[in-house]
């Protein structure tokens, strides 16, 4: 059940248009995944929406691989109403690297990118108002990073705002 290379018409069109920026295309459990260069993410997203009719961004999230040189996977799950098809765009991003925001392509990305920033500390360049969404604005740290222990918390914030020594 290992992922297999994918080479369908969509991938060929993407490769013809963006060349090297399309790094890899695979099929995992019958689901198409295209790995793209992070710098081209917005352009490729715009193309997918306008030319390939992936009119809805279903979800945007990230995965942390701290041992890798570029530690984050930024994941975009797209859906096309006319084709009834899903497509997953993936881009690798280093910790210090800004990821182009896709808010201008799909407005739904606004909150999703904020959540990603909140949980992983990924900075989305061009986001209209990038700030935390679920955690308090002054919170230190990004909980979904692998080096953030499950019992860890911002003890200073908890002490100051909740008036207790520990949240556990």
């Amino acid at each position, binding site marked *: 059940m290992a992922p297999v290379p994918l080479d369908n018409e969509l991938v060929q069109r993407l490769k013809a248009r963006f060349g090297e920026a399309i790094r890899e295309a695979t099929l*995992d459990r019958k689901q198409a995944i295209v790995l793209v260069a992070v710098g081209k993410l917005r352009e490729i997203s715009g193309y997918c929406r306008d030319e390939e009719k992936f009119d809805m961004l*279903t979800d945007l999230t990230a995965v942390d691989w701290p041992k890798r040189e570029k530690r984050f996977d930024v994941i975009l799950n797209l859906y096309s109403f006319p084709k009834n098809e899903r497509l997953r765009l993936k881009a690798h991003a280093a910790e210090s690297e800004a990821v182009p925001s896709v808010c201008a392509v799909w407005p739904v990305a*606004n909150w999703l990118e904020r959540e990603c920033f909140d949980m992983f500390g990924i900075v989305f360049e061009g986001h209209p108002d990038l700030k935390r969404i*679920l955690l308090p604005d002054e919170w230190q740290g990004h909980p979904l990073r692998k080096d953030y222990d499950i019992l860890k918390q911002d003890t200073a914030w908890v002490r100051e705002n909740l008036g207790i020594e520990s949240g556990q």
Partner: protein
Amino acid sequence: MADTRNNGGTWSGASNVETTVLGADEIILNMGPQHPSTHGVLRVKLKLDGERVVDSECIIGYLHRGVEKIAEHRSYQQFAPYVDRMDYVAAVSNGLGYCEAVEKLLGAEAPPRARVVRTILTELQRIASHLLWLGTHALDIGALTPVFYCFREREEILKIFEKYCGARLTTHAFRIGGLQYETYDGFEADVKRFCEDFATKIDEYETLLTENRIWVGRTKGVGKLSAEDAIALGVTGPVLRASGVKWDIRKAMPYAAYDQYEFEIPTRPTGDTYDRYVVRMEEMRQSRRICLQAVENIPSGPIMAKVGKVLKPPPGEVYHAIEAPKGELGYYIVSDGTTQPYRLRVRPPSFINLQAFDRMARGSLVADVVAIIGTIDIVLGEVDR
């Protein structure tokens, strides 16, 4: 609601609404997080010009429990009860999405009998969730009676859940690979009896509301959302269908046993609060129809696939979505080949639908904000996770 003049906002955190310059007649009004009509701990900041909403911002996270982080520290089976606590008024749907996602990751499939029983329970859950929505939404707007009627029927559904698995709300009804429990004696009869009675019950709710002048006046033209906006904002579920988009994952990408049954996808053209009411009412009728078809012919056979006691999905990833009562509920799971998910992401319909609140509320009256929050049908447990 606390009235806070221009300079009076001492709440923490920078926000759009606060920092924008206020006009001479504009004020900022804070609503929540503890306010009965926000259906939990939603806080909304409204910028008002007289009675009109000029701008709004939702402030969320008061119920954040770090569910996705917890998932990385539990085995696949151990995490299953946690999903019930996201959309806690539709726990069965959450469980179905999660179990099917893990099954897909494993390359397993639940046996036919389990799939049909899952479908019945999930559709009953959809009715229960819509009933809770209807009762509280009407209550918010000022119609006191429907909530008593709705809870009466919802109780019957919860009784079926209780008889089936012992729990009423956070049911943990399904297991990865199928079901843990066989249906109890009389399950089919109970479901059938409920469905047969329920047809007249929906008509009863409709006599209270559908042509009620106050109800129509408070909901028609309120919180309009166009189909283009709905798609751009990622809105799914009844809210999307009320904007005229005929899309339902049960039809588009069937799962469980939905491909075996006949049902319609109700849509409405204008995308206002009234249309969303009509769509959900019709959905309950369709859910009833699915239950009746399914219960007629539950296949015999095993209820559990052979998935083993220790689940180690091969490395890789999967995204699986179901049509939950509130919209597309998706699970994106990355496996590294161990017994615990490497990453588990929940795509919550409430969170994403709530983002459309600002679009729907702008230009409306402050009194309609309550109707708009109600019509999106959010559960804060799922918004904040």
